[in-house]
């Protein structure tokens, strides 16, 4: 690979490609398709969770004098969900480690972080990976509008940002049950997913949008997100200077708002800013402006935007201004060395523990960035200074011995040259030559500033 290819592979992938060739433009020619297997798995898990929750309740009622019955059921269910989660984390890491579509994989992680989940409860832990596979991946090459609708009206997002029980207070169901709505999803869509903070909305707009979103919920029997007019707030709502909906609430009302937000100029600049910050780094105003213009002129055609991102001069500039996040660091590290297949398998452990693997699941548990569990809906930061803190780097350093222990023997200087290419610093080379063991030398390559930057 020449220097320019190395730069691209670091910036838009996980470093050196498996087959020696990195062609992100070619990836954009592959037609996205629905992941039917993941779709049916998702529905299966949602139905399973619904049934099991009902069983737990029944167990409690049937055994009113025996509180342990519910506890036992809950424990069983927790173990099942922990197993799903461990498998999902392992599969997510390994999918990236073995992928020959590095750019698509990076884009998937980017959008999963833009529409971030905080998988803190059973439902979200069981569905987060499938959310990425069914919602993000198939929709991220089309229009931003399609991706937006898919993400917001996915079972995981509906649960995460509390749309599931949000009811129009004057709807049929609201009148009967005296239930109402909350503002969580409406607010975060505006602030974090579309126009951004300062994007031109006030508190009243959040309330109006939250009312428009009522009616959408996960139907537990089918595992699908559906619109039920009897749960939706009737009436015309005024939001950001526009009118939406009417006396009879319809599916289309929320979609009209999504269309309006997807076409809003603040959305174009917010998405352009985030793509730039994630892939290239801060202070690339020209790239941001160019992406914003393409987003607007193509009506949010994401593939067209990616093409501009890949070909803009800023994307060919030398590396070093940005930092790899923990997931990219880990995947890049696992791709860098030659690791025995068996060592990378998910292994069962004692009976009451979920399966694990210290390199994949163990790493994602102990690095700062947890998969699908950002500390807030804002997702993980793209600010390089966030990834440069002693606790983040310290956690990476702690993982390195656990990983390089499985690397096949390789001459450290050759390893450094292969993994770091034109970015290998003389200082790194001279340090690894002094290292007291081969494993330590390989570890120093993964610890080097040029391996952690991008």
């Amino acid at each position, binding site marked *: 690979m020449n220097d320019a290819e190395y730069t691209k592979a670091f910036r838009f992938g996980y470093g050196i490609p498996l087959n020696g060739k990195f062609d992100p433009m070619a990836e954009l020619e592959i037609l996205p398709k629905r992941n039917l297997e993941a779709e049916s798995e998702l529905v299966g898990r949602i139905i399973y969770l619904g049934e099991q929750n009902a069983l737990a309740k029944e167990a409690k009622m049937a055994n009113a004098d025996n509180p342990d019955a519910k506890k036992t059921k809950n424990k069983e269910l927790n173990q099942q969900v922990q197993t799903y989660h461990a498998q999902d984390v392992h599969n997510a890491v390994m999918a990236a480690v073995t992928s020959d579509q590095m750019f698509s994989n990076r884009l998937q992680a980017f959008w999963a972080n833009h529409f971030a989940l905080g998988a803190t409860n059973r439902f979200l832990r069981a569905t987060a990976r499938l959310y990425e596979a069914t919602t993000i991946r198939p929709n991220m090459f089309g229009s931003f509008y399609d991706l937006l609708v898919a993400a917001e009206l996915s079972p995981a997002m509906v649960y995460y940002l*509390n749309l599931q029980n949000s009811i129009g207070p004057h709807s049929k169901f609201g009148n009967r049950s005296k239930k109402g709505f909350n*503002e*969580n999803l409406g607010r975060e869509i505006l602030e974090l997913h579309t126009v951004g903070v300062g994007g031109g909305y006030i*508190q009243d707009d959040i309330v109006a949008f939250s009312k428009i979103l009522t009616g959408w919920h996960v139907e537990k029997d089918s595992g699908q997100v559906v619109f039920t007019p009897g749960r939706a707030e009737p009436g015309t709502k005024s939001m950001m200077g526009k009118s939406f909906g009417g006396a009879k609430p319809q599916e289309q009302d929320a979609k009209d708002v999504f269309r309006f937000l997807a076409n809003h100029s603040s959305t174009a600049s917010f998405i352009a800013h985030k793509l730039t910050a994630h892939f290239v780094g801060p202070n690339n105003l020209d790239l941001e402006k160019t992406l914003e213009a393409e987003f607007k002129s193509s009506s949010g055609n994401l593939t067209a935007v990616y093409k501009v991102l890949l070909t803009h001069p800023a994307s060919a500039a030398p590396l070093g201004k940005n930092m790899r996040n923990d997931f990219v660091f880990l995947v890049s590290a696992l791709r860098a060395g030659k690791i025995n297949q068996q060592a990378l398998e998910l292994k069962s452990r004692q009976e009451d523990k979920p399966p694990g693997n210290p390199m994949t699941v163990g790493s994602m548990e102990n690095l700062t960035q947890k998969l699908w569990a950002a500390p807030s809906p804002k997702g993980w930061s793209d600010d390089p200074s966030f990834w440069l803190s002693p606790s983040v780097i310290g956690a990476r350093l702690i993982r390195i011995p656990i990983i390089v222990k499985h690397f096949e023997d390789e001459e450290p200087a050759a390893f450094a040259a292969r993994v770091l290419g034109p970015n290998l610093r003389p200082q790194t080379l001279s340090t690894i030559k002094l290292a007291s063991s081969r494993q330590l030398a390989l570890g120093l390559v993964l610890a080097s500033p040029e391996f952690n930057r991008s």
Partner: protein
Amino acid sequence: MINRRNFLHAVAAAGAYSAMRGITFAAANSDKRLIVIIQRGGMDSLDAVQPIGDPDFAKLRPTGSARSFAVDNYFAFHEALTPLKPLFEAKELSVIHSLSTPYRNRSHFEAQDYLERGADAHDTTDTGWVNRLITLMGGTKFNFAADVGSGSQLVMRGPAPYLNIGTNNELGFWSDSTQFLEMLYNGDKDFAPVMAGVQANMQQSMMAEDDQHPGKGIEATCSLTARMMKEECRIASFSIYGWDTHDNQETRLGKSLEALSTAITQLKQELGPVWANTLVIAASEFGRTAHFNGTGGTDHGTGGAAFLAGGLLANGEGGKVINKKWPGLSHDKLLEARDLMPTDDVRRYMGWALADLYGISPGDLSSKIFPGVDVGSKLKLI
């Protein structure tokens, strides 16, 4: 471990740093401890510390708020704060009610920035107020202050050195080869300073076997914090999550308040005699809507409450719900007819605490630590 040699070294270093920076005041050798807990997500102050003496409270939340126990003739604590009752009675705990930062737009992320930057305007500074406090005190050693937990908090960030340490630390081959990391990072503008911090963390990690609760969770965080504060650490901060209770507040708020209760009681227990010299401040970015929403929870609001704890309170404002001016809860008294109206700026109380703890002057408080804040009519907190 505090021994005479280390102690003298710390004092000498602080003195040199102060002289170098032209700082005449150096409190780096104070024996007072400050622990700042950020309650991320927006705590519902009206459920945590319920104004049962306000006749509108019962109307506002006929069924909504949790079981509670009265602590004076106006306020009651949420039942999940029961472990804190003995502390309140011993004047080692107080609550300040109807507070906020100057921020009014109800975004978590902007509101947390305000709380952590300690500034009036959103963009005037990109350092945390604790970091500016460390600078002002002349703290020059990494283990003088600590940001505990994975990730890093804005409230600690800035040029003054501090530990940024997580609770899970197995060093592998690095334990006897950090000199190679130093060589690797030497001269790099980003990694060299990080390495200094990593190395300080590693030294702490080697002592981790002394911790009463190794591993993960709030217990481990508090153990690590307490162990460091019994040594040279004077200022520490960590976060407690889970306050964003848009639905199912009954369960969710209870869990978060339990975590807060655990944190405070465990710090007291593990700090032992040092607790007498400690002040804990726990604050959240905003309060929540006065009315319950339609899903058994509350949405983002404005006026909130903060907790103070520590042995130092016993000689000051301990054992009180401090509220200089209760704003009322009738429809017309709420901010925009939805939120508890804030009647004071949380930064004033934090500023007064710093004045009492470390003798920070009013001028420094309102220019360097909490720019623009009015620190007049001081309350002696400790």
